[in-house]
């Protein structure tokens, strides 16, 4: 290209650009004109109309917060309720020196160190234009004392509010969860779901447990009040109102008395218990020990108490029933036996001669039975009754891991049960594929041997095991476990029952079921591993004990030697259903560091079964009876 041409080109380009610039100026001019026209329309043409609106916009639209729905147990006992009271609140936007104001206030009304700490925390996470609570639950006298002095405290006001209260405290915390103040993160979530309008004026939202998972049911619909105000912004009269609609009442399937019995039965043990009605999936008791008191969380727990809870070696905030994952131990044996029958790996009559140790073909590695010397001749019935490890080592090898994985997952192992709580963990049901993905290793026969008795890679949650037991108890017809039975609406007096249809039927051969169930009854009869679970019971209990080995401890080094020893003890399992012929309740009990399932877990189960079926707890066993019954895996 010659210089001349290039110059010409440049000139042409400049010309084109100028043209575009002119179009741009035209575009902006149009925007400006549109804006001007709109402003003239609003401010000159329609001024009168908006003037009137602004005048009558002495009308405030005040949100009226609905009452939060109650939570009742299956017999109507209140588990979460509301009561009204006063709070003292500070609006930091209207207060010059918050610190000085609080000091001044404390001369009038008691403000504790905890109140101050909580206030600081609220201040840090506050939303715009929000008033913050400095004291809750003022007495009438305190409210009156402040009201008389209110003129001295600009930006400080008394508010009447409904408070949430959980009368059963830590006995039911893991199930109910708690509500807490709406923070910026909650607000963002509400905005993203376009729910913030319904939360205008609301201060609380469900943070965990049922309070969280049923938030939309419990919150209710915010009402509106149109209030006329004078020039100073004070309400003069109410013009119209839309009443708020209270949140729906949740009726749980939980029987709180049974829950209390179960809670008490644990004594000082840590662990979990889940009891389910196998006929419909109603969760009757849902215990995780230790619990914690949810009440202080509502208005923001102070840092010190929080640290105590959060750093406790007993991890009270961990929901063991829902999230705790433990090896199932021998509790898998009834399910393994069903798998063996299903795949024709063994007939019921086939008996092994148990020397107390098992070898894989061509290997000298010993897999020991828990009973030194073995159990003699063992068929399937006896293998469950005495919890014979050797029998199940062999069965597992004959089945192969693929069949085990297939059959066990039918009972929900390795999967979430889908209960109506958030944060459920899925346990672990190992497979060849899983091991390759996780460890980049092929599956060895030795792995299968361990899986056969519920050790190795297996992990289950107490909820999962309870669900599997319920499914077995109900002859393979599974119901999704649920804590809420019914949602009651105050407005329409319409009651919605939570799904009661079975989710699937495993179509198990009745003969197989009969054998395994009879064997599980044998477990609680003389000769079984949990014989004193049924001592003196007027009904028959089907059960199975289990022991989960504690392999490693995370925070081990923090505690002294004695404690380490205690915390390295095996976890004890017991699963059961009763009455064995027509089960009304199925449960799984886990006792952390409880040793043998028959020793610590079975008595807890017995108390729960007795209370549910007979309405009373069993008398304590005498030492002689305990001795006679013996103690096994």
């Amino acid at each position, binding site marked *: 290209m010659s210089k001349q041409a290039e110059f010409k080109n440049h000139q042409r380009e400049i010309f084109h650009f100028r043209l575009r*610039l002119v179009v741009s100026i035209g575009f902006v001019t149009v925007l400006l004109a549109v804006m001007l026209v709109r402003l003239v329309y609003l401010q000159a043409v329609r001024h009168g109309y908006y003037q009137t609106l602004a005048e009558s916009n002495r009308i405030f639209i005040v949100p009226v917060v609905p009452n939060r729905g109650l939570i009742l147990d299956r017999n109507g006992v209140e588990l979460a309720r509301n009561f009204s009271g006063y709070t003292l609140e500070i609006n930091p936007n209207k207060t010059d020196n918050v610190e000085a104001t609080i000091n001044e206030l404390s001369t009038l009304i008691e403000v504790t160190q905890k109140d101050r700490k909580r206030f600081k925390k609220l201040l840090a996470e506050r939303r715009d234009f929000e008033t913050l609570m400095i004291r809750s639950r003022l007495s009438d006298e305190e409210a009156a004392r402040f009201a008389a002095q209110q003129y001295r405290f600009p930006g400080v006001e008394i508010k009447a509010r409904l408070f949430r209260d959980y009368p059963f405290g830590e006995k039911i915390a893991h199930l109910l969860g708690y509500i807490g103040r709406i923070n910026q993160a909650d607000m963002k979530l509400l905005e993203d779901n376009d729910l913030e309008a319904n939360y205008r004026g609301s201060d609380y939202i469900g943070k965990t447990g049922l309070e969280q998972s049923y938030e939309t049911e419990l919150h209710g619909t915010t009402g509106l009040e149109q209030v006329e105000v004078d020039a100073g912004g004070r309400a003069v009269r109410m013009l119209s109102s839309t009443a708020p609609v209270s949140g729906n009442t949740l009726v749980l399937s939980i029987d709180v008395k049974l829950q209390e019995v179960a809670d008490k039965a644990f004594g000082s043990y840590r662990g979990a218990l889940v009891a389910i009605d196998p006929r419909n999936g109603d969760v009757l008791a849902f215990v995780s020990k230790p619990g914690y008191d949810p009440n202080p969380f509502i208005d923001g727990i102070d840092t010190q108490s929080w640290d105590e809870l959060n750093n406790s070696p007993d991890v009270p905030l961990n929901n063991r029933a829902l999230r705790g994952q433990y090896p199932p131990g021998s509790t898998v044996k009834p399910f393994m036996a069903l798998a063996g029958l299903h795949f024709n790996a063994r007939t019921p009559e086939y008996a092994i001669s148990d020397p107390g140790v098992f070898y894989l073909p061509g290997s000298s590695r010993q897999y020991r039975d828990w009973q030194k010397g073995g159990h003699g001749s063992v068929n399937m019935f006896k293998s469950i009754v005495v919890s014979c490890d050797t029998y199940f080592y062999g069965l597992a090898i004959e089945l192969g891991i693929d069949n085990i994985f297939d059959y066990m997952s039918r009972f929900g192992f390795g999967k979430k049960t889908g209960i109506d709580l958030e944060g459920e963990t899925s346990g672990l049901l190992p497979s060849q594929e899983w091991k390759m993905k996780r460890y980049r290793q092929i599956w060895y026969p030795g792995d299968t041997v361990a899986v056969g008795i519920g050790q190795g890679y297996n992990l289950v949650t107490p909820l999962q095991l309870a669900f599997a037991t319920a499914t077995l108890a109900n002859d393979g017809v599974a119901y999704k476990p649920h804590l809420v039975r019914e949602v009651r609406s105050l407005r329409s007096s319409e009651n919605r029952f939570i799904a009661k249809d079975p989710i699937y039927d495993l179509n198990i051969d009745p003969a197989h079921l009969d054998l395994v169930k009879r064997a599980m009854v044998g477990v609680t009869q003389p000769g079984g591993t949990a014989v004193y679970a049924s001592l003196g019971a007027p009904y028959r209990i089907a059960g199975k004990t289990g022991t989960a080995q504690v392999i490693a401890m995370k925070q081990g080094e923090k505690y002294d030697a004695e404690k380490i020893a205690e915390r390295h003890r095996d976890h004890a399992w017991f699963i059961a259903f009763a009455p064995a012929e027509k089960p009304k309740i199925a449960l799984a009990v886990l006792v952390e560091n409880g040793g043998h399932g028959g020793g610590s877990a079975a008595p807890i189960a017995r108390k729960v079964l007795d209370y549910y079926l007979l309405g009373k707890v069993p008398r304590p066993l005498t030492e002689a009876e305990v001795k006679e019954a013996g103690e096994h895996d």
Partner: protein
Amino acid sequence: MTRRQLWQRLIAHLDKPLLLGICSLLLISLLVLYSASNASWVQPINQMRNIAVALAGMWLVAKLPLHYLMRTAVPVYVLGLALLIGVALFGEISHGARRWLNLGVATVQPSELMKIGVPLMMAWYFEKNEATLTLKNYFFAALLMLLPVALIARQPDLGTALLISASGFYVLFLAGLSWRVIGGMCVAGLASAPVLWSLLHDYQRHRILMLFDPSQDALGKGYHTIQGMIAVGSGGILGKGYLNGTQTHLEFLPERTTDFIFAVYSEEFGLLGNLILLSLYAFVVMRGFIITGNASTYFTRLMAGSITLTFATYTFVNMGMVCGILPVVGVPLPLISYGGTSMLTLLLGFGMLMSIETHKKLVKS
């Protein structure tokens, strides 16, 4: 060096008319903020700090010679893109949207950086290929824009994605994208509207529908629109007077210091005040166009034009939202609304305009 010389050197690269317009708007910002926060000094003082930081940034950028400015294009763009990809992969989900990236020292919102990064990169690209521009180049430049826009839209932050597309489109337009293609794009856009509609989230549709009937959602976003229009309309010709807006001071107006600050101004200063405000904005935009017209290189022309048009667009979108002719999207009123990040981004842009104006003679000679 005398004090006078020192002063001369300090302000050497500041464009006086532009600075005058900007400072007038900033003064109005402080004035209105004081009223909007119910005669409290807290927010105006914070805003002064924001302004000070942003002005310092502007001054620094204005001193940068053009070739430095150009050299920042690729690093800024690549950094922004890397951060956006980082957000998509490891970003903190702040409930439903991944917008923030935690770098250990600070959390950043890379989409903010791309408001400058995208037009900068596109202008740089056109400059590099100036001699041999074909349709392919426009296509590639559009890709440079769409890549970050898609990432931002996925976060999801539709508002910012649209505004960045606008500034990118302005570069394409100024770079001489043929009218036929523009026309084609318009037709395609209209044709795909029903498809886009079906892709929107429920709440996004809700916001658009609400534009036609704000009373449907009197407690939520519709409340904002209704109260905004009442504030503007009741201001009338002369306004209710400074600190006398009932809508503002009885706290009917939401987000008075940020997105709806225009309603506060309109209520208290009326149509007359608005004429002054619009004139100031028009003055700044006109000055921007003059700088664009004088710009000596392809890169600076595109950059200056895009910055100016984007500024005008932001202003219009915010005012339109307050006056109920555009949906409620979270766009602040440039130079007036309370906030540090947008102030910084805006004044850095103006710093570039000033650099383009005050360094052009050096380039020519």
